[in-house]
């Protein structure tokens, strides 16, 4: 994190604090507190929504590539892949059984 970001961040915190708390009267400004809560909640909701959208786009990209890859395999390649997957699953089960014993 560079110094500029830290300075801007610190200045923002100080600015918000001065907006919300009256240092002379030593009390909170009610209206500004409510505004701060609403703004923070809206900001958080926007961040979560943006993250969800980004994740959904990423999921769609994964799905597209995975579908393309599976559909591009010949029947023989698909059969061999399934055998390998079955073997791997069987060896996983065997390892689990050994651990249980």
């Amino acid at each position, binding site marked *: 994190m560079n110094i500029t970001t830290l300075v801007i961040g610190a200045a923002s915190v100080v600015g918000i604090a001065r907006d919300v708390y009256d240092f002379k009267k030593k009390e909170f400004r009610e209206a500004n507190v409510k505004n701060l809560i609403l703004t923070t909640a809206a900001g958080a909701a926007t961040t979560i929504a943006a993250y969800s959208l980004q994740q959904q786009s990423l999921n769609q990209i*994964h799905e597209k590539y995975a579908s*393309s890859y599976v559909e591009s395999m010949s029947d023989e390649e698909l059969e061999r892949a399934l055998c390998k997957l079955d073997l791997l699953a069987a060896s996983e089960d065997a390892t689990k059984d050994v651990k249980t014993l």
Partner: protein
Amino acid sequence: MNKGNEKQKLKRYERLGALKFQKLVFLVEKGKFLILKKCFPNFIHHYDKYCDWQKKRALKRAKTEEERKAIIENTKLAKMAMRKELTEEKNRNYHMDPKRPTEIIHYLEWNKNVHKKGLMANGILIPIFLAGTILQIPLCPWLLGFEILSAAVNFECINIQNYNLCRLKTVQPALKRREEQTIQKNIEEFGEAAAVIHKSIEESESLPSFQEILDHINTPEQLRQMRAMFYREQVERQRQKQIGGK
């Protein structure tokens, strides 16, 4: 009113021979794949080399890292798409993918533009060869005949694309909804396995082998989803073969 117009357009395209020409197109397609598989068993190897050559050329012109990434990814997608065509023996320009039904609209538009350009070239060459024929220049009659045949084929191809585009555009919203539902269902059922495959493709220079994909599996859930995905693909192919009567 719109539906009435669309019906009239469809009738016009049918009168111009869309459905009959489509049968011929499918026959030629069948023959093409038969010849490719029997006479050119290494076709996919040569196609990959062609894709890599195109990629190198495009990368030289690329200015940003995003462009470079897009070129590399598109090359991989093109290689997978050609393999799929060979496996299914279905040209992506002529057949709708049931999982992604709206994708064909892009291919139809692209195909139509190719034939439009061909028809424009025919429009320039036919008068030239006609003049040559009249002036009794050797070979001109043959070339004129070839260009007239080519123009007829280009015209019918454009007609058939218009017919299919007209049909698809009337049901496009329903197709889009179906596609989104299918994709969402795939994400829910196979999301983790899909992420593993995508990661392997991203990390690989070309297309990864299946062993490379297996090496990226870390959790039992990824393995379970991958098995389910591959089994479903196998079942779906068997179902398609039964429907196709192969």
